[in-house]
């Protein structure tokens, strides 16, 4: 053994230590405060020309060993940097001045990492919690409406608790999930639509989260922003950060707010002139049917004003006004927060009670949120939080199913008295066959959904050195839902009656371990992040259906003559390893690289792991501009990114072809005739299994989403005016299509393949302006604009079209093309008329597109002393809707348009002799022909809405000057007060009557109309 290396080693150490001794370092105690004396949390202290440094604690203090005359560099976000010479001091207070002019926005990015917005290489937008609460919407998705560029939000129906759909930058999957991923404090939460056991929308589960607990929402839009989130993040991420107790004085503060709002529905216009009846071809008159012994579905009767029955005129009923009522919502929130420097807490409880405009519908929600931050050790902080919510939603079936009461309400004749709803013999009293009396439905059909949800999260941050942070985060999303549906005997759709009980159990666990290192090397700031994610999701559905009820006023399923029960559960797991490197040179050039390697349980075994990543860069060119220019444009940045994300957007268990329980429901509806063939196994005492009709694909692999994004961010006049624009192109490749149709003569109706290709191109523009800013009066304005173009590039094997609910997926068309029957026309576009004098159809084709041309929002806030007035206009140009209410209505003669029912000659060319048409037809025949051709009910859904207008008065201390009341405010808000929709005949074109799934879009059917409402809020803080 050679002693020399060891000796040299020891000498070296001694020298180093010695040199330090010679340098006479002293311990320094200090505090960093702002000009008001408050500690500046997060300030960093670095010894100039050395790598030593520290960060301040929660109270702004720090300890550091420094040599005499060392110079400290102190930086903090939002403050001007300071250089302080220590001289010979052992204690020091450093005061930083706030940099109001260059207040650099801090944005929460992927995984909860806070970064300055200027350092980001991709597009994000923030919405503050206060803005969300201003919207007075119980559902967070609705609260974001009209505010964020690149985001399309569509509500479904006006029933309380109804779902809303949120899609960022266009659809990326044919049948998989297209809605954005929701993350709360770093943990993904489930946003499935559940709760409706019959037809119509359910509730999207984000509704369980109370908007009042939200500090802010970051919308991360492109794949580069979300590459760290794994595959699900490719659809865009809504990052919700909840409130904390940090940053307040030690005294606990209590805030109480109470909202009351009144809602009235936006009703479609129906004709109010003609009675129930049909055209009599013998007498050539519109004949009156009284709905009792002469029944018909239609209102092609005589004019009410001149109609007399037995010498008496008939009473006119306004069916809509009589049925719908004013809905009332009350929302009470109380929250407490406080802290003592080492720990702080935030607790909030809300109770929302909403009754709907349709009677017997309501939504109740209790939401409790508690968060506790504490410093366990000097360099170990932890956060414990729990979100609990309990809700109950009562609703009725909606859409074009026979049980839906609104179908009958919207199409009932004005000459018919809907009450009493029962005949003397107990049967229902209806003006036509095959429907329920809507008032009978109120007493005999219900759909209840009760949800209890827990979202616990534990986060630990460990900073062993000032440049290293280790984060450990564990979160879960657990909910259990109990759904119950009852339909009494005597219902037209199900005469024996039925009860359905469904229990859903959902459990999701997410674990992240992240190591984050930041170092300054010369003029480079380097940041490296490494992490691991483990994710597991389990959901179980238990479904029991009892058909044939035997006891009235008794709801237990045990009374049913036949009860079937089935249970299914799904388990999926994912593992991911990810890394992100950011290189920032002189705060001018920023390069960002991410990489991730995922493994997913749902893909085939040898293809379950797949890598992906992104590279992005931005250049803050305003740093290079002369001061003269920066006086005008104080900030300018261009950014460019490319990302590729692997995705496993498919349910588990698609690899094999098993047997399954046979269940038939309406085997192949006949043309204009619906056959009810409900069968389920066990059947008459026998169990049975038939082969699944979807051929499994044992070679299923991940799909891929590639995105290029280029953006520009500029601020003018010292942030008085800001303009951001982004342009993106994203392509889905190897897209998974579960159940793509194949020729049934293969023995199977579908199979799962990796062959879909789809593309989205879009432009997002965001403009922020503060035209007026003075002590007493200020005016803020934000305008956002989005234009997205989607195109389906390939489906499977040369197939050019597959169905997707109410729309179709067609190669060369956007996702969401509406296909239906079209009128036959001449080459020049004139209608061809048949020999009966009516236009006709003999072909189907693309007749509409549900995607808008562009969307935008304008929001303005005016502040004058204590008053504040803000309003938000939300607009959408284009976006076709199938107006199914008019579709059926044209047959019945109920929409306002059918008031025009005189005999007429339809302008067009006769198909047989090519001469202009001269045949006279009745109004009834004309409208009924229109009912048969889908083209006639496609309406352009363009709208401009005054989504919210609110006036608030902040009492400040003036109300109770010497009391413990710290602040109080009173707010009046109007929602949906004005809608301009020139082409749509229903009330509100922002509608999707069957819910928030991809296949439900673009259809307006018999659902509760959305409402206009007035809301009064009183908010007091102690």
């Amino acid at each position, binding site marked *: 053994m050679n002693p020399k290396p060891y000796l040299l080693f020891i000498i070296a150490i001694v020298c180093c230590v010695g040199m330090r001794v010679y340098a006479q370092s002293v311990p320094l105690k200090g505090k960093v405060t702002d000009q008001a004396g408050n500690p500046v949390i997060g300030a960093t202290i670095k010894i100039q020309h050395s790598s030593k440094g520290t960060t301040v604690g929660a109270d702004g203090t720090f300890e550091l060993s420094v040599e005499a005359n060392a110079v400290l560099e102190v930086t903090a976000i939002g403050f001007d940097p300071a250089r302080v010479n220590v001289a010979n001091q052992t204690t020091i207070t450093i005061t930083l001045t706030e940099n109001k002019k260059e207040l650099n926005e801090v944005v929460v990015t992927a995984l909860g990492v806070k970064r300055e917005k200027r350092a980001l290489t991709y597009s994000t937008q923030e919405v503050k919690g206060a803005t969300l609460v201003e919207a007075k919407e119980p559902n967070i998705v609705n609260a974001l409406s009209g505010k964020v560029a690149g985001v399309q939000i569509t509500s479904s129906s006006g029933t309380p608790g109804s779902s809303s759909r949120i899609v960022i930058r266009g659809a990326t999957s044919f049948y998989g999930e297209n809605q954005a991923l929701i993350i709360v404090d770093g943990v993904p939460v489930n946003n499935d639509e559940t709760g409706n056991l019959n037809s119509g929308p359910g509730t999207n589960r984000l509704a369980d989260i109370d908007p009042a607990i939200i500090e802010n929402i970051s919308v991360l839009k492109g794949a580069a922003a979300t590459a760290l989130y794994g595959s699900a993040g490719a659809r865009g991420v809504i990052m919700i950060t909840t409130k904390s107790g940090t940053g307040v004085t030690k005294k606990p503060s209590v805030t109480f707010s109470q909202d009351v709002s009144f809602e009235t529905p936006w009703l479609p216009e129906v004709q109010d002139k003609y009675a129930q009846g049909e055209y009599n071809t013998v007498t050539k008159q519109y004949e009156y049917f009284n709905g009792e012994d002469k029944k018909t579905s239609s209102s092609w009767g005589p004019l009410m004003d001149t109609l007399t029955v037995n010498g008496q005129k008939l009473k006119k009923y306004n069916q809509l006004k009589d049925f719908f009522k004013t809905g009332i919502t009350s929302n009470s929130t109380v929250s407490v927060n406080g802290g003592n420097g080492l720990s702080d807490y935030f607790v909030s409880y809300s109770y929302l009670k909403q009754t709907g405009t349709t009677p017997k519908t309501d939504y109740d929600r209790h939401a409790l949120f508690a968060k506790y931050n504490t410093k366990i050790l000097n360099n170990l902080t932890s956060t414990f939080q729990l979100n609990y919510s309990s809700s109950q939603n009562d609703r009725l079936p909606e859409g074009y199913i*026979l049980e839906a009461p609104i179908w009958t309400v919207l199409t009932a004749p004005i000459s018919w008295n809907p009450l009493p709803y029962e005949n003397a013999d107990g049967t229902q009293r209806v003006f036509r*066959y*095959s429907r329920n009396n809507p008032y009978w439905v109120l007493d005999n059909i219900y759909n209840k959904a009760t949800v209890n949800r827990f979202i616990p999260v534990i986060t630990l941050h460990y900073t062993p050195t000032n440049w290293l942070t280790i984060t450990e985060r564990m979160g879960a999303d657990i909910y259990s839902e109990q759904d119950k549906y009852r339909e009494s005997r005597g219902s037209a*759709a199900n*005469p024996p009656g039925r009860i359905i009980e469904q229990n859903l159990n959902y459990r999701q666990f997410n674990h992240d371990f992240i190591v984050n290192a930041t170092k300054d090397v010369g003029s480079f700031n380097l940041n490296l992040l490494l992490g691991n994610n*483990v994710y597991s999701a389990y959901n179980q559905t238990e479904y029991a*259906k009892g*058909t044939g009820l035997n006891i009235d006023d008794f709801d237990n399923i045990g009374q049913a*003559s*036949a009860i079937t029960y089935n*249970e299914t*559960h799904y*388990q*999926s*797991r994912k*593992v991911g390893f990810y890394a992100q490197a950011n290189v920032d040179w002189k705060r001018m050039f920023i390069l960002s690289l991410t990489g991730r390697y995922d493994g997913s*349980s749902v893909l085939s075994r040898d293809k*379950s792991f797949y890598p992906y990543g992104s590279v992005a860069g931005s250049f803050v060119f305003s740093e290079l501009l002369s001061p003269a220019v920066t006086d005008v444009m104080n900030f300018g940045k261009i950014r460019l990114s490319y990302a590729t994300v692997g995705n496993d957007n498919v349910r*588990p*268990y698609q*690899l*094999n*072809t*098993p*047997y*399954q*329980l*046979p269940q*038939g429901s309406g*085997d*192949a509806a*006949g*043309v*204009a*005739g619906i*056959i*009810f*063939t*409900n*069968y389920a196994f066990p059947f*008459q*005492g*026998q169990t*049975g*299994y*038939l082969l*699944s009709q979807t*051929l499994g694909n044992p070679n299923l692999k991940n799909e891929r989403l590639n995105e290029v994004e280029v953006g520009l961010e500029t601020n003018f006049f010292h942030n008085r005016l800001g303009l951001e624009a982004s342009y993106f192109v994203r392509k889905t490749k190897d897209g998974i299509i579960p159940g793509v*149709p*194949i*020729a*049934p*003569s*293969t*023995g*199977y109706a579908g*199979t799962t393949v990796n062959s879909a290709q789809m593309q989205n191109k879009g432009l997002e523009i965001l403009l922020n302006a503060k035209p007026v800013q003075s002590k007493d009066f200020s005016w803020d304005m934000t305008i956002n604009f989005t234009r997205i173009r989607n195109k389906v590039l390939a489906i499977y*094997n040369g197939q*050019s079209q597959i169905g997707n609910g109410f729309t179709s997926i067609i190669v060369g068309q956007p996702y969401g093309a509406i296909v239906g029957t079209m009128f036959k026309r001449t080459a020049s576009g004139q209608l061809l008329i048949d020999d009966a004098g009516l236009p006709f159809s003999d072909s189907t084709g693309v007749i509409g597109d549900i995607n808008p041309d562009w969307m935008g929002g304008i929001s303005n806030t005016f502040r004058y002393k204590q008053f504040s007035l803000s309003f938000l206009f939300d607009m959408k140009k284009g976006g076709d809707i199938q107006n199914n209410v008019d579709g059926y209505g044209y047959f019945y003669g109920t929409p306002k348009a059918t008031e025009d029912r005189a005999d007429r000659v339809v302008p067009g060319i006769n198909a047989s002799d090519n001469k202009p048409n001269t045949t006279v037809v009745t109004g009834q025949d004309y409208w*009924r022909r229109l009912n048969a051709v889908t083209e006639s009910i496609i309406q352009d859904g363009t709208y401009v809405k005054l989504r919210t207008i609110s006036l608030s008065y902040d009492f400040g201390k003036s109300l109770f000057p010497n009391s413990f009341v710290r602040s109080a405010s009173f707010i009046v808000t109007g929602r949906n007060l004005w809608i301009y929709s020139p082409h749509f005949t229903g009330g509100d074109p922002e509608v999707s009557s069957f819910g928030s799934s991809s296949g439900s879009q673009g259809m307006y059917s018999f659902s509760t109309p959305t409402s206009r409402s007035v809301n009064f809020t009183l908010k007091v803080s102690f």
Partner: protein
Amino acid sequence: MNKVIYIIAIAGCLLVGGCKKFIDVNKDPNRPSSVQEPLILAPAELVVTQSLYAGNVSTIIQEYVQTMALNQPVPNSGTYFMVQSDMNGDWTVLYATCLNNLARLDSVATLNGNTNYAAIAKILEAFCWGQGTDLWGDIPYTQALAGAGNYTPVYDKQEDIYKGIQQLLDDAIADIAKQGVVLPGDDDYLYKGDMAKWQKLAYTLKARFYMHLTKAPGYNAATQADLALQALDKGMAANDDDLKFPYQGIEGQENIWFQTFLPGSTFILASGFVDTLKARNDPRLTYMVKPAKETGLYTGRQIGSAPGSLEAYSRPSDFYQGANAFNYVVNYSEALFLKAEATLIKSGFAAAQPVYQQAILSHMTKLGVTSGAISTYMTARGTLTAANALQRIMEEKATANFLSIENFTDWRRTGFPVIKKVLNGSSEVPRRLLYPQVEVISNPQPQQSARLTDRVWWDQQ
């Protein structure tokens, strides 16, 4: 340093190995990958009789033969309006729901040596192929049901499919002859494991398919009649041998016709059927038809007329559409009418007459018509002449085969009962169905341009 690398490597392997195991949770807990024969037979029998034989396609065929009508405005399926997408469901029922499972049942049973199950599977398969080719003509047969092995099966000629059907039935009969030990029990809703009845059914079906080819090119009626008579000797012998699906009337599991005639579907009986019974003073009118709720009269709806009040029309009686009625799929009466027609071809109307009368009697006794009424009717309609023999046989067969798809085949083949184009019909009376759009898109073949009025191979002038 080496040690450290070594440790990291092991940890890495464990991690990766552990990860692979952690995500290996993709085995379906909700659906089995293999089941035994009784569990396949029961649902197969239900879907063949309910979804294929009495499903959507059946209601369209009943409109073509003017037994059923929709109470809807023109155009509708009854006035011969059809687009290819209307056939997607029924084609899927034929191949994916019925044939694929029967083929699987056959192979599983053969593998296990359960010859009785194999026989039943073959007989039902033959039945399905028969209905499929009779309605659609040339359809995939030899290349069908291969799953991922062949995504674009070619369409076989109908003649070859008929040969295949006869072969399947012969193989089934041979399987039954093996007298396998394992017998179906309650999983066989149709015959409860009585293999003798299955054998009789196989022979009756052979006879049926022989008779379909009386006008086929290259075949002659006399030969087919001979073959049919030979098969009928071993075929059904009594009403008890009917192939019928029993329903217990449980809520939600009612007879398929009960569900089809629910008010929501707007299906009721057509005037073509009801008026015919009235015109003949057929005593079966009150046994087969219900009076209309609104009027108390026996009224059928004229297809193609403007919609009227739904309850002013009649529905079938509870014998056919009660919640717990049987779904009659193959009737003994049909066997007798086949024999009557074959006898007519071979031996003339005088020899056919007693068989013909026996056939009518079998149906009437099944319905429970009183003997007095029967004999009155026989006096009126029981006599055959050279001029009316075929017509009478076919007309009575149509009544006995109420709601059967066979009536459409018989009309195409013989021209009886006479059917005229309906009011506002958009073409002549159809003679086949359109190919489904799902096939046109996923498996383009030259035959797919066929129109409703084209003739299938055996349907010659």
